[in-house]
């Protein structure tokens, strides 16, 4: 029973001038344990706000998000987070970054070291333990960020456009890695992306969000993630159904963008 339940979450930002922005409106959904949800939408639709609320960095104006029956109230270890730029601590080595969470809990360093080794192996960074993080490439930094998050054994993993800043090749590798980790650990994952392809490839469920006010516009349940676990990601991309879904969502988002532009003009 560690489902993620969002109930009528509203988020209204007020500026000092008195302008209000309705960032999220009545977001209601339930995510079962072990599900992989990707959230897609044009910029400004409240994707990141939703993630920040789930992580506990923001408090919703009304409504609540519960994880395993407990209301989310501030950040916590049970909800790990992976950021777009990795947000690694560049003054630490790879090892020190990965075991950061365990060190904060003051766990036994010997056990920790073993765990770190395991996780570095999983994310494919074996032997990089003592490398300073500022010497790593972008893809490697994201692997470290993943390991750092997963070593804490969180119930829910929140990913904020984690692959957005990577080149196409690295991105593909990382997508397989995310799927592999999802399969092996069975974690609940929410992944935010602005790439339609990525959302379709990785998402067991896909939410397309619409802006002003930020809301869930459309929901999809897709088979591609489970297909991706077995097969080649590139083959799936050429799948007929995949292509038609991609075009459908792209059109949807383009319409939304046009609507916004129209409104602004």
């Amino acid at each position, binding site marked *: 029973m560690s489902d993620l339940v969002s109930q009528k979450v509203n988020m209204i930002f007020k500026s000092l001038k008195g302008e209000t922005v309705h960032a999220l409106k009545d977001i209601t959904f339930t995510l079962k344990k072990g599900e992989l949800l990707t959230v897609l939408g044009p910029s400004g639709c409240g994707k990141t706000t939703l993630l920040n609320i789930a*992580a506990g960095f923001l408090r919703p104006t009304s409504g609540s998000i519960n994880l395993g029956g407990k209301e989310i109230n501030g950040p916590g270890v049970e909800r790990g987070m992976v950021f777009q730029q990795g947000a690694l*601590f560049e003054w630490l080595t790879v090892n020190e970054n990965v075991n950061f969470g365990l060190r904060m809990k003051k766990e036994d360093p010997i056990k920790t070291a073993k765990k770190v080794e395991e996780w570095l192996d999983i994310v494919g960074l074996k032997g990089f333990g003592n490398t300073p993080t*500022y010497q790593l490439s972008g893809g490697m930094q994201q692997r470290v960020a993943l390991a750092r998050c997963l070593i804490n054994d969180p119930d829910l993993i929140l990913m904020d456009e984690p692959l957005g800043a990577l080149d196409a090749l690295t991105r593909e590798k990382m997508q397989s890695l995310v799927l592999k980790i999802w399969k092996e650990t069975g974690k609940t994952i929410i992944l935010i992306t602005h790439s339609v392809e990525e959302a379709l490839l990785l998402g067991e469920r896909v939410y397309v969000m619409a802006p002003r006010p930020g809301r869930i516009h459309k929901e999809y349940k897709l088979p591609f993630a489970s297909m991706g676990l077995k097969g080649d990601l590139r083959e799936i991309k050429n799948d007929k159904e995949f292509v038609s879904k991609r075009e459908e969502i792209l059109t949807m988002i383009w319409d939304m963008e046009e609507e916004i532009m129209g409104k602004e003009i």
Partner: protein
Amino acid sequence: MITGFITFFTIFAVVGAILYGRKLIKTEKTDAVFGNPERAKGGMHWVVVGSSFLLLSWLYYSWDIAKSFYPKSANELCQVAKVNESLLSLKYLFPIVERQHKSTAIIKRENINIEDKIILIQNDPNLKDQDKKIFVNILRDTKLMIPSLTDERYLEDDTKNIINELTIRLNHLTENFPKDSYPNLTEEEENEINEGLKKQLGWGATGMEVPPLPESKRGLKFHAAAAELNSISDEFFEMRNHNPEYLKQSEAIFGEIKEYMDGLGDGRELDYIKDIKKLVRRIEYASIFPPKTLDELENAIRAFDKVQNNEQANLRTIDILLFPAGTIVASGPQCSEAGPGRWLPKPSDTFRIFGEMLKPSVGYKMIPMLWYEMMGVNRIVGFILPDWIADIMPGKYPVHNQDGTVDPNFKSRMLDIVTGEFEAFKIPVPTGHIWDSFLRVFLGLSLGIILGVPLGLFMGLNRFAKGFFDPMVELYRPVPPLAWAPLIITVFGIDNVGKVFLLFMVSFSIMIISARAGASGTQLSKIHAAHSLGASRWQIIREVIFPNSLPEILTGIRVAVGMCWGTLVAAEFLAGTTGIGFVENVARKYMQYEVIWITIFVMGMLGLLFDLTIRKIIDKTIPWRGKG
């Protein structure tokens, strides 16, 4: 000797480095076009040229090259300067240095003065007509008196004889001067000079600025000529062209003045008549002669000047080439350096004095520059432990006995320990001017860092702290630290406490600003990451915000070191009894230019050392800077 060697060596180094530079250009990669930073890389050979250039300039402009290659040149130039000085007053009489004869110039000026005065008197509405008339009469008489001085007919034979005699003496000198036998000194005179030479010290900081007694044959010639010229010049200026005709007229004028002044109180009239009297006196003492009278003398002076210039020979070249921007001047029997040689000490002297000062037994003002002393551990313990520790111990301090002794108890023994009154082994502790300055900077800086960094971080993270401490910091920070110095020194005393506090104030504000900038510049995603990894507030500050602010903090320290160092030297200038700034201040009072330059050099070196250390620390501790 050493200076000469160094001079040649440096010149070779420069030539070698330039040749190497030329060669390097030929082998340079062709892809390094102008503007490519690649072209600025390397270039140690140009460092050699730059340093050599500095050293050579120093050697040259401090006249050390002259001293090294021509050690006697200053002494000889001093003798020449004596001759020139003696000759100058005579030269001024004629159009040699000036444009006109001195008599001509005086007559011209005084005639104008008289006419001006007459106009002034006639136009003064406050003067009575009667007074005006008297004044103008006296002035006209004065003007009429001048021809009595310039008319050859009135010139007395005595005066003519003296002028002739002086001319003959000068011609005689001119004739004898180039001869090898000149000067013909008596044994007594020779002994006198030799005695003086025994006591005479060398050129430079060891002894006199410039040794005045002649040390060479050529010097002796000029020395003797200067004495003769002095005697001629004295005799000439004692002579007055006061012939009977002049005396008659001037007596009449002074009589008129006296008569008028006798019947006078004080008022504007008095001022006028005093002015007129001054004017008459000026003419009386001016050396006014008839136009042709001094022609022979003038020729004699010109002739001697030519001869003495010839006799200087290569000394003139040395003076022009090796004594740049100045020369040796004489004033009476003494000589001094006029030019950069005076305030730019010779490297040879400077290094010798520096070596001397570094000796712990010499130092400066009884304190070594940098040495160590043995200090009992008890004194250190007594300094560190506060005395009240003994007060809070149980029991009471002992009271003396009837037989006049005191039995120590536990409490009194504790007091002995905390005040350092016990026997202990000794350890070496650094001491001296350089150490004192260093320690002050170090303490002030450390205090500033220890207190400033946490407060700065706090201010970067907390609205209350930022608002509360901002006014205080921002109000005292823009004030130049030296403006605080008088106040701080009054409150905390001229010794270490005041200076350390001043430096603390300097570094504290800088550390606050930099730590605050570092804290508020932390990426939000890193803080978020730390939160979701389960870090507590304290852990976030210690593990994320502090290391993230380190680049700013270390840069702040680097700035603070420079500021502290500058402030300290100025503060030591103001007050105190030790430290590099103190040394410079004392040296300034006694015009010890070598010591001034040594302190400047030491300060530069220490400042550089501080900066290099911190740069090293920066490279070691924050290698990720600019790569995150």
